[in-house]
């Protein structure tokens, strides 16, 4: 690692015969790919920002994403936080695999890489659950009342009706019941045309599907790459080669996936 910063004269560095960046061909072009891929994600998130900025209202992340598997609603952002933590931990196991590779510790690389694959599978499955939940919607959906669209919820074991009108406005008791009885339309779940979380901004669900879907596909691809490299490690391909640089290259890709998630998490769920 420290060797990268050794002092070399400019004429020698740029004189041909080797990379002026003192980095291998494969690693350099993995970086180039990641730069272009990051520009794609950057554009998607900027487009999301544009749509959100030019809309009158936008759903609040902690109100839309407040469900936990087996536990129901009322856990704002907890599940996404868990997913984020899993992805960060799998990034850590990956960097430990790379470090073990630099010591040519084959067993260490295999162990950490397998744990990275497990973390990745866990993340993709969590995302599948979240999509399922997002598409099916909350139990009671949204209704169009005289005051506008509201998400329907029942508290205290299904007895007390409350209506959630965005921007933190909650109506309960008799007035909620009369608004509910006068409702003229209902909506449940989400698809590319309409969604119950923001009936007035259908593009909200589109951005959710596109951005998390594109990211989820990257995670899935990363899991496949990691699995292939894991098989090669176990078969001893890199021992023969004398270095484990392939682990480093898939590692770059894997960290990038984590990096993108850090931004998606902030801009889609937090702010």
């Amino acid at each position, binding site marked *: *690692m420290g060797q*990268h910063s050794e002092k070399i004269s400019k004429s020698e560095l740029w004189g041909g015969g*080797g990379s002026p960046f003192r980095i291998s061909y494969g690693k350099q072009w993995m970086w180039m790919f990641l730069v272009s891929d990051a520009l794609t994600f950057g554009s998607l998130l900027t487009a999301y*920002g544009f749509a959100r900025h*030019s809309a009158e209202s936008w759903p609040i992340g902690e109100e839309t994403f407040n469900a936990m598997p087996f536990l129901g609603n009322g856990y704002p*952002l907890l599940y996404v936080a868990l997913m984020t933590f899993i992805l960060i931990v799998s990034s850590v196991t990956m*960097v430990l695999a790379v470090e073990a590779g*630099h010591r040519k510790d084959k067993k260490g690389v295999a162990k950490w890489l397998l744990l990275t694959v497990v973390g990745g599978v866990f993340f993709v499955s969590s995302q599948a659950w979240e999509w399922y939940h997002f598409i099916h919607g909350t139990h009671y959906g949204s209704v169009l009342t005289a005051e506008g669209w509201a998400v329907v919820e029942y508290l205290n074991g299904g007895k007390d009706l409350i209506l959630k009108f965005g921007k933190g406005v909650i109506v309960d008791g008799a007035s909620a019941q009369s608004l509910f009885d006068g409702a003229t339309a209902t909506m449940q779940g989400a698809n590319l045309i309409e969604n119950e979380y923001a009936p007035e901004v259908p593009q909200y669900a589109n951005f959710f599907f596109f951005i998390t879907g594109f990211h989820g596909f990257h995670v899935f691809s990363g899991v496949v790459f990691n699995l292939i490299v894991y098989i090669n490690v176990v078969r001893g391909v890199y021992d023969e080669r004398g270095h484990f640089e392939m682990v480093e290259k898939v590692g770059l890709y894997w960290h990038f996936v984590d990096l993108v998630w850090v931004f998606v998490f*902030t801009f889609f769920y*937090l702010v």
Partner: protein
Amino acid sequence: MERDDLIKDHEYSLLANHDEEHGKAIRKKIWQVTLILTIITIVEVSTGAFIKQYYDGIANNFWWIIKWSFIILTLVKAGYIVLVFMHLGDERKNFKWLILGPYLLFIAYLIFICLTEAADYLSPFFDVISP
């Protein structure tokens, strides 16, 4: 035919190998960064869960502080991931610029122009210029 770039690959990659003692220091650094990333995530989520954007229809006047803290914390996290986990911090200076340069140029500009235009879309001025 023998590919000369692959031979160079081999050389650079062997340079990256290190001994057990050096590895210990690197692992310590990795766990430190893990701790920092975890703490930042916990702080972000608890802030998001307890401080609301709106209270009963009234916008939280201090939300912009929270929003900017989220963005700054995200950039800190991204910095740790790129510089430590992806080892960009250990690469040569000209390579760092090769990777980060396009970002400072294009994405910063794209964010600026898109958000400015989006804000204009909502302003009364927009109705004047586009009937």
